[in-house]
C-alpha cells in the first residue's frame, strides 16, 4: 500500500467513524436498570402472565395504564362523529370484523386470553402483555392463534408447513426488556390484514431495518427512529390515531410547556415553514407533507394488498382440497380461504381532501347498494374546509359479503377449528350464519357480495428530500392530483377558451404580417419596373 492509499484508507476509516457518530443522532438514553440483575426476573417462567406479574412488582401502575389505552380496550369514542370505533367494533375490507374470529384476531391484543369479543378484555392484573412492546431480544412472538399468548410448547406454523415454532425463553426475554423499537410495534402493525404489508401499504417488515431511501427517519443509515420517537407516549398511551388524524398540525414545533408534546405529525419537528424556498412553503396550507414526501408506498420490497374479492372464496380443486395460486411476484392471487387478490409494490397513492376525521360504515349501518362501490370508511374534508389538506391514501378495493335484505355489511366467521368457519369449511352460508349466531348481530339469511373501498392514510415511508414528488408530477396535464378539485394548479388547470382565443390572435397577427410582407415584395417589384 503506497502512502497516498494509506492516507485515503485512514481518512475513510475516520469518516466512517464520524458518520457513525452522526447517524446515531437519535441518541438513546442508557437504561438506568439492568433487568438481568432483578431477582424477580430470574425465572423460570411457565407462562407469559407470570412475567407480567413480575413486572408489576416494580412497575406498579403500568398494568392499570395499559388497560386504559386503545391498545387494550379496542374501543375508541370518536368526538367528531360520535361513533364508537376501535378494533372490536369496526369492519374493514380485509378480514372483516374481529368479532367471532377470536383467538386469531386477539393474537394482536396487548394482553392474554381475550377469547370472546362479546366480553370486555380479561380483567386480571397480569393479563397485560408487557413483552410484546418491551422485548429487545426478538425472541418473543405472540402465536397467531392463541389469543395473545406465545406458544408454551413446540407448535407448527404456518399450519401444514411442518415448521415448528419453539416456545420462547421467557426468563431471558424478561431480563432483556427495554424501550420499544420498530420491531416491537411492527410485530402487530406490520402484519395487519393477515400477513406482511397487507393492510397499510406504508407499514411492513421492511421498516425493521429500512434502507434510507425507504424511510429517511427510521433507517439506521438515517436517524434510526423508533416508532415512539414520533408516536410519543404518556403513561403508555400512544399518540397518533387513524380514526382522528391530525391532518393539519397548527402547533408546529413542539416545545415543552407550550404544546401538547405529541410528535405524531411532521410539523412537530419540521415546523410550519420547513422548506428553504418560499414557493414550496406556499404549498403547505393545501398539501399534507406526506403528499409530496411519500412518492409511493410499499417501497421496501414487500407488496401490499390492493384488491381482495371475497366472493370467489370457497372454490376447491377436484379432490376437494383448497387451492393456492401465486402471481408472478410470488404473492397469492387466489386462496380458497380468502378469494382473489391483487398486490402492488411502489404504489402511487391516490389523493383526497382530508380534515382528519374518518367515519366508518359499521356493521348494521345501511348501505347504498345501488351505487357500488360502497365506502367502508368515509374520509371527511373538502377544498372549502380550512382544516383540510390534500392527503395521500391507499385505497383498498374489493368485494365483501352483505345482507341483501337488511342491506348492511355482515360479520364474517372466518377463523376457527369448528364446523362453520369459512377457512375450515369453505361455506359462506355457514360462516355468515355462525357469525350472526355468535355475535348476536341481525342477519336475514340472504347475502351477496358488493364492491367496497376503504381509505388508508399514508404517512410512513417518508423518502429522502431528493426523492420527493417532482413539481411537474402535479403541475402537468397528466397530474397526480387530477380531479382533486378546489384548487387552481398552474400547468394542469387552464381555460381552454382563453388558450384558443389567445393562439388565434397570435396566428391572425402572424398571418396579417405575412400578408403585408408578401404585398410589399410584390409591389416593390412593380414599382422597380
Amino acid at each position, binding site marked *: 500500500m503506497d502512502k497516498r492509499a494509506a492516507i485515503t484508507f485512514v481518512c475513510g476509516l475516520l469518516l466512517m467513524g464520524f458518520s457513525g457518530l452522526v447517524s446515531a443522532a437519535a441518541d438513546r438514553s442508557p437504561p438506568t436498570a439492568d433487568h438481568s440483575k432483578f431477582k424477580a426476573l430470574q425465572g423460570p417462567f411457565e407462562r407469559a402472565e407470570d412475567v407480567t406479574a413480575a413486572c408489576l412488582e416494580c412497575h406498579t401502575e403500568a398494568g392499570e395504564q395499559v388497560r386504559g389505552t386503545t391498545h387494550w380496550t379496542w374501543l375508541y369514542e370518536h368526538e367528531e362523529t360520535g361513533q364508537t370505533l376501535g378494533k372490536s367494533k369496526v369492519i374493514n375490507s380485509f378480514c372483516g370484523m374481529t368479532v367471532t374470529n377470536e383467538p386469531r384476531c386477539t393474537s394482536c391484543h396487548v394482553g392474554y386470553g381475550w377469547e370472546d369479543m362479546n366480553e370486555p378484555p380479561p380483567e386480571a392484573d397480569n393479563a397485560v402483555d408487557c413483552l410484546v412492546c418491551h422485548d429487545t431480544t426478538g425472541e418473543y412472538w405472540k402465536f397467531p392463534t392463541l389469543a395473545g399468548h406465545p406458544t408454551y410448547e413446540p407448535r407448527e406454523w404456518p399450519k401444514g408447513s411442518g415448521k415448528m415454532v419453539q416456545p420462547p425463553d421467557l426468563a431471558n426475554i424478561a431480563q432483556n426488556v427495554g424501550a420499544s423499537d420498530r420491531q416491537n410495534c411492527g410485530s402487530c402493525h406490520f402484519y395487519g390484514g393477515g400477513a406482511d404489508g397487507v393492510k397499510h401499504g406504508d407499514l411492513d417488515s421492511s421498516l425493521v431495518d429500512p434502507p434510507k431511501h425507504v424511510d429517511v427517519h427510521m433507517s439506521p443509515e438515517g436517524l434510526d427512529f423508533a416508532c415512539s420517537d414520533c408516536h410519543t407516549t404518556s403513561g403508555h398511551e400512544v399518540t397518533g390515531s387513524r380514526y382522528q388524524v391530525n391532518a393539519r398540525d397548527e402547533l408546529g414545533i413542539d416545545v415543552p410547556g407550550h404544546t401538547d408534546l405529541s410528535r405524531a405529525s411532521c410539523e412537530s419537528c419540521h415546523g410550519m415553514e420547513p422548506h428553504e424556498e418560499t*414557493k414550496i412553503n*406556499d404549498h403547505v*396550507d393545501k398539501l399534507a407533507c406526506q403528499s409530496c414526501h411519500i412518492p409511493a408506498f410499499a417501497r421496501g420490497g414487500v407488496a401490499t394488498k390492493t384488491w381482495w374479492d371475497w366472493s370467489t372464496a370457497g372454490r376447491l380443486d377436484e379432490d376437494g382440497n383448497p387451492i393456492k395460486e401465486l402471481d408472478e411476484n410470488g404473492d397469492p392471487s387466489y386462496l380458497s380461504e380468502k378469494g382473489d387478490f391483487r398486490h402492488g409494490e411502489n404504489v402511487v397513492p391516490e389523493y383526497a381532501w382530508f380534515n382528519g376525521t374518518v367515519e366508518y360504515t359499521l356493521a348494521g349501518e345501511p348501505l347504498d347498494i345501488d351505487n357500488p362501490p360502497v365506502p367502508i370508511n368515509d374520509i371527511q374534508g373538502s377544498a372549502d374546509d380550512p382544516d383540510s389538506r390534500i392527503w395521500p391514501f391507499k385505497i383498498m378495493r374489493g368485494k365483501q359479503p352483505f345482507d341483501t335484505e337488511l342491506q348492511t355489511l355482515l360479520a364474517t366467521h372466518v377463523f376457527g377449528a369448528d364446523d362453520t368457519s369459512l377457512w375450515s369449511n369453505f361455506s359462506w352460508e355457514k360462516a355468515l350464519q355462525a357469525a350472526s349466531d355468535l355475535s348476536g348481530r341481525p342477519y336475514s339469511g340472504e347475502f351477496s357480495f358488493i364492491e367496497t373501498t376503504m381509505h388508508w392514510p399514508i404517512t410512513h415511508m417518508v423518502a429522502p428530500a431528493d426523492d420527493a414528488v*417532482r*413539481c*411537474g408530477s402535479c*403541475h*402537468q*396535464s397528466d397530474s397526480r392530483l387530477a380531479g382533486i378539485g378546489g*384548487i*387552481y394548479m*398552474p*400547468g*394542469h*388547470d*387552464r*381555460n381552454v377558451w*382563453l*388558450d384558443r*382565443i*389567445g*393562439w388565434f*390572435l*397570435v396566428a391572425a*397577427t*402572424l398571418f396579417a*404580417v405575412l400578408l*403585408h*410582407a408578401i*404585398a*410589399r415584395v410584390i*409591389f416593390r417589384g412593380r*414599382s422597380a419596373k
Partner: protein
Amino acid sequence: MSREMIFKRFERFWHWTQALLIFVLLFTGFNIHGTLDSLKFSTAVQVHTLAAWALIVLWVFAIFWHFTTGEWRQYIPTRNGLFAVIHYYLIGTFTGAEHPYKKTTKAKHNPLQRLAYLFFKLGITPVIWVSGLLYLFYNDWPETVAGAMELETVALVHTGAAFAMMVFIIGHVYMVTMGKTLTSHIKPMITGYENPDDH
C-alpha cells in the same frame, strides 16, 4: 448633416434587456402554463420568477429615467398625422409613397408608434405585473383580496396578457422592417445613431 443620437445608451440597454427578459418570460411562462414541455416545472418557475424580478428592477430604473429626462413626453398620444401614418402602412408603402412622418430627437416616435408603445406601457405591462405579483404572492393575499377573487382569475388575466404581449411583439418586430431598408429602423436601436437619409 451631423449624426444625431436617437436612442441613448440607457435607452438601448433598457430596450434590449427588456426584450431578452420578455422572451425568457414568455418561454418559461408557457412552460409553466403547460403549452411547452421543454423545462422542468420547478426550473421554469424559478427562472420565470427571477426574470420577472429583473424586469421589475429594470422598469423601476426606466420609469425614473423617463421622468428625470422628460422622455416620457415621447409617448403623449396625438391625432395629428396619425391617420396619415396608418394610411401609409396600409396603402402608401405599396405605391412607393414617402413616409409621412419625419422623426426628430424631440419626437422620435410617429403617432402610431406612440399609441402602440403607450398601450404596451400602460396596458399590457401593468396587467402582467399586477397579475404576476398577485400570482406570486397568492399565499399572502390579504383577506379582502382573497374574498374578492380566486387564483384562477389571476392566472387567466396573466395568461391573457401574455398573449397580448406576443401579439405586440409580432407587430413590433415586423414594423421594424418597414424602414427605408430592412435594417434602417433597427440600426439606431443598436448603435444609437440613424443614417441621415434613413428615416
